[in-house]
Structure formats: structure tokens, C-alpha cells
């Protein structure tokens, strides 16, 4: 169906002469590492990007897809990783955006009836009078799917649909995808998890570095063959060298309670302990208080009860600056709005956590020579692709900016590092680099508090895992007891007293 597609971005050939066929009523997995070009390819099909070369054929007829509307009128719908939903609108309002038929008036009652019809037909249950921001991630995903079906999509493209779902929710999602298939829908799943592809797909296409390297039907496929196709060599994914470092230093959180943005208690008496030389993972479905917990430990959010100690030293009353000085580092998920001031140069960004003292501030004045030197050190030690230290941070790609931030936080003399989804959106090279750096920070005796929505990442990197559910923390699970399904169940509340 897609023939010879080429898409270039400045300096990158994202999709390189790709042919991609899709048959009616199949579930097709588009597999590949992060950055392999899967999402870009599907965005071309969905009209978000325009291909530089190549053509799209539907039932043998060439079609032009210039935007999402063209795609939708050809029966193609796509659910992106970041949902295209307005949080403050109700579900039915979200489903009504951009509707063309049925006159000028917005008749929500009539639309409601139609939506309910669709809900019944496809077996999707959502309270459509609720605002989207009141729904869980899984529910929002169902809203997105419903929205596409409601617009008459016959082909659904789902971009990493399982990335923020618990294993149990994944099971439910796959169940409803099969139901949709039996209703006659064609489904594409973009994923980097090969077991998922093997689980759900009828056929698999593997992309690597923008090229198709492998196509097959599911029968007779082995995980090894797929892994080799994806990565180009057979490697074990979790070969991080783990050395136990013994130390009595620790970051301790005791009975911490924190309020969320909507004035409800998001963290309820959470307790955990990160030792120097270990990685403590925090698992949980997003929105269960992880964000508030981390922000509160760093001093960005006031706590309303509990204590935080670094090496026995109570820092609960300190501001952000005091906590940084006490040895805390933080690699936020929001690279462009929190981790860096993107309109400022890399030099200025390099001292975000050191701008109040020697050697960068001498006798009250900024020492630009020392600052530039530090920025250059980060750039060279952490292999950041940047022209020099004077370019604004916004000129860096996501992966390079993340490397820069990781480098900054690690080259400072911090003893504990918090990191939230450190590899989200990074390509395979950057992902591996960042993970290796986190492990080597630990091996040098640093303590890491790692929050990730990617359970596989946590299982690969953590020494112990604590699960968060509705603001509460579980007892830590030791590495020898790691069990994906068991932790998945805990993420859904098993073992938590409600």
C-alpha cells in the first residue's frame, strides 16, 4: 500500500524508500527500535508529514494524503502516543471537534446517541459526559479509538499503545483489538516490544534505521529472528553491569504526603529508601503520585507531612537550592521546559545547579570562562552533538539535549540522582547511552531513584522496585523476586489496602 516512501528531516533520512503493505482485516505489527522511523512512516500515511518521495495506494488506486482529514476520509485513523484530546472538554465534545456533517449547530444530545451506538457496536464503555482529564490513561486511549471509529475509520494505527498501560490493561486492549478485527477493521500497531508483536499481530514488518529489514507472517517466527532483525545483531537487552557498592549513605523518604494540582492528596504517606550504590525503581501507572513525589523530594512542591533525609540530614525544610547543595540531582522528564532553559546557551544551561558559588560565580560575578569550560566538558564527555557551547539549547535534538542534561547532573558532585522516564522518546543509541550512564553512576557509588513508565526498563536497571498506587508506596521488591506479572498486578492495586 505504501511504495518507496522517503522522508527527510534536516540532517536525517528518517524513512528510506520503504514499501509497506497492509491487508484488510489484519493486525499488523510495525516493529523496530526507538528512532527506526516507524512513527514517521505512519505519520506520512496519516498526513501529519508529507513524504518527500513515494506514493500511497489504496485498493490499487493512488491517493493523495496531505493532512489528517484526507487520511480520515480514506478511512485511516491514528492514535498517537500523546493523545489528541482536550483535557477540559467532555468526551462527547472531544468527539465532536471538526465534525463536518449535520449542519452548523452543535447538537450534543444527538451526537451522544450516535456515540452510544458506536460504543455498543464495538463494545467500548466510557462515560462520555465526563471530562477527559477525569479519565485514566487506559480510558483516554479508548476515547481515542472510539473517536476514530466514530469518524468511520476502517484502518486504525496505534503508536506504542501499551507504553503507559499495566500488563493487565494491555491484555484488555488486545482483547478489544481482536474484537475490532472481527468487526472487519484493519489495525497497525507500532511497537518496539517484540513479544507484543508476536502476541497480537498476524504479520510483522520490521524497520531499522528507516529501512524495511524484515517482513513475515506470524507463523514460525521466533523472538531471536525478530531481535536480530530489529537490532542488526543478536544482543541481550539487559546486559548492564551491576556491581554492588556498600555504603551507609542514603536518601530516605518517610511518610511523605503531598497535594496535587487539583488540591487533592496525590502522595499519601509514601516511604522509601535509596542507598548509595543502588538504583531504586518506582513502578506505577502514570498519575499515581510519582510526579508529585519526585517534585516534592526536589523541593518544587510543598509537602504536607513526612520527612526527607539525605545521609541522615533532614532537608524537608530546604528550598530547591538547599537540596541541590545537599547533594541531590534530578533529570526531569520535561527536558525542554524544566531540564533546560531552551532559549539560553548551553553554557548558561550547564550551571543551572551551580550558579551560586565557585568556580562559576567569583566575588559575585559570573566567570564565563569557567562556565564555558564546564559546558565544553559536558559536551565532550557525554558525546553531545552540538556545534559549540554557545548555541541555544533549543537547537539540540531531544536525544542530545537529554545527554547534555544527564551529563550536567552527573558531572556535578551529587550523591543522589532522581530520573523520570530518562529514555522516553530517545532513539536506540541514545537510550542505551543514557541507561549505561545511569548504571555507571550507580557503580561509582551514587544512588539513583528511577521513575519509569516502561516496566521493562525498570526491570533491566533497578536493584529494587517500589510500586506506587494511588499515592501510596509498596514495600520494595528485591531484584531476585522481580516478576513482571506480579509487579503489574501491584501497579493495579494488588497488595494495597484501599
Amino acid at each position: 500500500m505504501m511504495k518507496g516512501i522517503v522522508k527527510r528531516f534536516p540532517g536525517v533520512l528518517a524513512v528510506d524508500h520503504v514499501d509497506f503493505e497492509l491487508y484488510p482485516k489484519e493486525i499488523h505489527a510495525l516493529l523496530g527500535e526507538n528512532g527506526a522511523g516507524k512513527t514517521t512512516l505512519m505519520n506520512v500515511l496519516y498526513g501529519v508529514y508529507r513524504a518527500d518521495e513515494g506514493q500511497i495506494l489504496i485498493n490499487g488506486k493512488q491517493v493523495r494524503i496531505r493532512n489528517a482529514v484526507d487520511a480520515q476520509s480514506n478511512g485511516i485513523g491514528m492514535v498517537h502516543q500523546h493523545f489528541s484530546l482536550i483535557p477540559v472538554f467532555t468526551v462527547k465534545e472531544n468527539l465532536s471537534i471538526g465534525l463536518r456533517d449535520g449542519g452548523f449547530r452543535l447538537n450534543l444530545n444527538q451526537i451522544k446517541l450516535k456515540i452510544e451506538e458506536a460504543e455498543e457496536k464495538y463494545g467500548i464503555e466510557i462515560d462520555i459526559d465526563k471530562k477527559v482529564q477525569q479519565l485514566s490513561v487506559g480510558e483516554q486511549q479508548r476515547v481515542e479509538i472510539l473517536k476514530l471509529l466514530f469518524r468511520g475509520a476502517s484502518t486504525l494505527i496505534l503508536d506504542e499503545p501499551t507504553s503507559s498501560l499495566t500488563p493487565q490493561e494491555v491484555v484488555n486492549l488486545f482483547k478489544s483489538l481482536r474484537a475490532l478485527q472481527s468487526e472487519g477493521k484493519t489495525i497497525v500497531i507500532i511497537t518496539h516490544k517484540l513479544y507484543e508483536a508476536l502476541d497480537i499481530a498476524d504479520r510483522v514488518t520490521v524497520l531499522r534505521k528507516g529501512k524495511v529489514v524484515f517482513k513475515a507472517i506470524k507463523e514460525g517466527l521466533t523472538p531471536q529472528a525478530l531481535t536480530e532483525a530489529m537490532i542488526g545483531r543478536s544482543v541481550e537487552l539487559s546486559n548492564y553491569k551491576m556491581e554492588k557498592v556498600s555504603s551507609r549513605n542514603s536518601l530516605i523518604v518517610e511518610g511523605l504526603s503531598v497535594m496535587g494540582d487539583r488540591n487533592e492528596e496525590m502522595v499519601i504517606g509514601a516511604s522509601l529508601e535509596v542507598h548509595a550504590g543502588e538504583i531504586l525503581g518506582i513502578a506505577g501507572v502514570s498519575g499515581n503520585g510519582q510526579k508529585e513525589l519526585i517534585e516534592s523530594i526536589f523541593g518544587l512542591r510543598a509537602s504536607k507531612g513526612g520527612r526527607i533525609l539525605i545521609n541522615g540530614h533532614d532537608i524537608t525544610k530546604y528550598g530547591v537550592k538547599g537540596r541541590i547543595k545537599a547533594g541531590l540531582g534530578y533529570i526531569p522528564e520535561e527536558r525542554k521546559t524544566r531540564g533546560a532553559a531552551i532559549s539560553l546557551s548551553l553554557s548558561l544551561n550547564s550551571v543551572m545547579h551551580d550558579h551560586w558559588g565557585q568556580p562559576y560565580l567569583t566575588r559575585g560575578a559570573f566567570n564565563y570562562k569557567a562556565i564555558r569550560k564546564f559546558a565544553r566538558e559536558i559536551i565532550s564527555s557525554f558525546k553531545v552533538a552540538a556545534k559549540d557551547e554557545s548555541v541555544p539549547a533549543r537547537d539540540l535534538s531531544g536525544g542530545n539535549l537529554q545527554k547534555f542534561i544527564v551529563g550536567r547532573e552527573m558531572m556535578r558532585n551529587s550523591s543522589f540522582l532522581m530520573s523520570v522516564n530518562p529514555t522516553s522518546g530517545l532513539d536506540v543509541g541514545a537510550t542505551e547511552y543514557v541507561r549505561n550512564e545511569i548504571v555507571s553512576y550507580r557503580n561509582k557509588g551514587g544512588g539513583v531513584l528511577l521513575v519509569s513508565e516502561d516496566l521493562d526498563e525498570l526491570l533491566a536497571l533497578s536493584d529494587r522496585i517500589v510500586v506506587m498506587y494511588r499515592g501510596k508506596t509498596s514495600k520494595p521488591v528485591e531484584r531476585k523476586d522481580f516478576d513482571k506479572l506480579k509487579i503489574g498486578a501491584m501497579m493495579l492495586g494488588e497488595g494495597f489496602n484501599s
Partner: protein
Amino acid sequence: MNIRKPIQIIFFIILALLISSLLLLIDHVSPIAGIAELISGGFLTHYGLVATINDTIPLLIVAVAIIIPFIAKFWNIGGQGQYIFGSIFATWIGLELAGSLPGALLITAAIIFAFIGGALWAMPPTLMKIYFGTNEIITTLMMNFIAVYFLDYMTIGPMEGSIAKITHVPSSAPIPSPDLLPHIGGVSTGIFMALAIAVIIFILLRYTNFGYELKLIGSSIDAARYAGASLRRDLLLSMVLSGGIAGIAGMIQVFGITTVLLPQVFSDITTSFGYVGIPVALVASLNPLITIISAFFFSGVLNGAYAMEISFGIPIDLVITIYGLMMFFAVIGVMINLGRIFRRSGAK
């Protein structure tokens, strides 16, 4: 530094002047003659140049003042009100202490009082922002209007001078001449204070932690908090400085040029340095040193517009539109990539 942007901005400012000159056709004046008169009246004649430098003084100080919070994207549009309160406070202390202090000491006292007056007037919007999250553009602007009425009241009421009581032209009593700022060849020595302020603020913004934190806040509030900046302290300090410095501009104007406190009319651009400071600062890309040039240029355009009014009867209000157009085109000049457009059309 990239040379392309400044050249583009200058190109667009010239474009703005050319477009403005077309408006002269409404008054049946040739645009070319008008522009020529504007340039010579503002920059080339002796009288015009002296007036231009004298008007540069308050303009430069106010523009530099508002740059400080602007860096943090806190839009202090209230320079005019802060300027007015500085002038009220300075005039009051000047008249109160006249004769009892030597001139230099009295001028120092006036500067301090002007700073306090301007800073105080900047506080309500700042505190409202900190405690209620109100939009500072609206609050600082409202404070301007309130200040104008208060000034009006002072010059007709409590501070009305004895001459004004007879002539019914509202103004305060004059500051005695020994206490005024001296002039050199017609130019007020306030110019040295203005230049010094510009340099000091440039250093402050570039080399201190405070300046760094303002830049962080301007880039992203979340990033600034992450970097341990104290937002409230920075905001408060930036507005104390901004209001205070704008207040000093008011003092220098009274002690250097007008010698009396005069009421203001909203629409009178020739006394609205607090408003004109906004385009002056923005066209200079919020750099205090470049602001010296842009303040001089804007001031020259103002005095050139005077000359056009005298020679051709062009209403002085035109200059406000010119300012608006210069600002409008300058910011487009920042955003646009002329080089690419030229290359693209050349390639075809």
C-alpha cells in the same frame, strides 16, 4: 554574535519609516521632504541634536528600567506611572529641603526619593502578581492611569506653586536653580547618569546571579524553579529596581529640564517616556547597551517629528504611529529569515 539579525532589524526599521512617510500624503506633504525634515530636525541641526540628547535621557533610563522585568517576561507596562511617582517624590523633597542642604546633597536626596517613589508605585502590581496571580500587563497599566490623576491632583492641589495659583496653569513651584542639574552646551548632565545606569544594568544582568535567574525565568518558569531560583525574590527585586530607576528618570526630567512638576495629558507622547520606553527596549532586544542607540534614535524621531510639525504642519501624533510601526517591523525582523527567502527566490 550573528550579524544577520541586527542588519535585518535595521532594514525593517527603515522600512517602517518609509511606510510611515506615506501617511504624510494625507497632509499633502511629499514623503521624501518629510523624511528629510525628520532626519535633519532630529539629528542634524544643532538645536535638534541638543533636544534629541536631552530627550534621550529619560527615554534611555525608563527603557533600561523596564528591561529588567522584561527579561523575566514580566511585562511591566507601568513605567509611566513609576516615572510620575519618581518625579512627585523628588520634587516634593527638593522643595521641602531647598536652601537647607547644599545642591549636591539635595540632588542625592532627590534621587533616593525618586527611587523610593517609583519603586513604591511598582509594588501593588508586583504583590498582586505574587499573591493573586493577576495579569501584570493590566495591573501596571491601570496604575499608570491612577498615577496621572494623582499627579493632576498634586499639581493643582497640595503642590501647586504660587505662580500657578495666579496663572491657573497647573504646576508645582520651581526647584531653585542652585539645586538643578547643570547643563553643558544645552545638554543636561543627566545624560551621564543615564549612560551610567545603562552600563550598570548591563553588568547586573550579565554578571550576577540575579540577572541569570531573570533569564531563566524568562525562558521557562519551570526551569527556573528547577534551577533553584527564588521566583518571588527575583520578581520583587526586579520590580523594585525597575520602578525605582523609572522614578529616577522622572527626577532627572524635573531637575534637569522642566524645573517644575507638570501635570500630564494621556495622549501627549512628548511626556510619555514611560510608554515610549517599551518600543525602545524591545527594538534593542532588551540589551541595555543597544538601548543607548535605540533611545537616541527614538528621541531623534520625536524631535524630527517636531520639526515636521513646525515646517509642514504634520501633527506630532504621527510619531506614536511611527514608533508602533518601528516596533512592529523590528519584531517581525527578528522572526523572519530574510537570507533564506532571498536565496530561495534567487534559486528559482
